[in-house]
């Protein structure tokens, strides 16, 4: 039997790798890939808790569906934004978009 802690540590590791990816990659699309990793880790966490704690309830599943939905929407919009920015500036480097500097 797989103890819950294995799943939890796995998802923790995945989250950390995802965070690292978001923060430290120059390419904007690579940031998005990092975000996907984080969201997947979250899904793993949710379903693990659903399975191990209260299988009869449906809350964990619904939450997971919401996360997947949100991830999809966010990727779509995010990529649209990146492409618009790319068209404008010919650059896909996240650091170059520093309009809020001040």
């Amino acid at each position, binding site marked *: *039997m*797989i*103890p*819950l*802690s*294995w*799943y*939890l*540590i*796995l998802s*923790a*590791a*995945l989250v*950390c*790798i*995802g*965070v*690292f*990816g978001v*923060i*430290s990659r*120059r*390419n904007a*699309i*690579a940031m*998005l*890939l*990092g975000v*996907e*990793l984080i969201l*997947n880790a979250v*899904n*793993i966490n949710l379903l693990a808790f659903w*399975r*191990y*704690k209260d*299988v*009869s309830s*449906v809350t964990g*599943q*619904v939450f997971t*569906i*919401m996360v*997947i*939905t*949100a*991830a*999809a*929407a966010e*990727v*779509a*919009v995010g*990529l*649209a934004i*990146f*492409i618009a920015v*790319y*068209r404008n500036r010919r*650059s*896909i480097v996240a650091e170059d978009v520093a309009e809020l500097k001040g």
Partner: protein
Amino acid sequence: MILDQVIFLVTAVVVLAAAVLVVSVPKMIHAALWLILALAGVAVLFVLLQAGFFAVVQVIVYIGAIAVLVIFAVMLTRKAMVDDGPQLNRYSVMAGAVSLMMFAALSGMLLSWDGANALPANPAVHPDTIVNLGESLTNPQGFLLPFEVASILLLAALVGAIFIGREQRAGREEE
């Protein structure tokens, strides 16, 4: 069973390795492909968790739609690819330290929690997952509202993505 554990470990290793590669390979198309592998591994994990529906959803939505979308974006921004130059920005050291610390903290916290060593609940009791899920999603006393809101979110994302992504030459007079 020990079989579960073995499968789990193998899958875990694959996922983590793929994830590391996602965040470290210089070429973006390689990163996208490694992401697909990671997502597949996560789908296997879902099966292990006896959430078969979600494994299928994972494959269809994540791998089938999102990863493909990412590949499209990579393709569209090929000219600006900085695959040759440095991939990591100035915060990478700090980010690495922070992630490691985060991992240490999270693991420490989780392992110190005595519920962590729980075993899965009795499988014979759990009901038909999908039917329950479907019923609750459409039940006003259940999760109908979040369901509907999620639909609106998707709609907004849809419209927004189209609007942001349109060609500027087509004229901006249409608001």
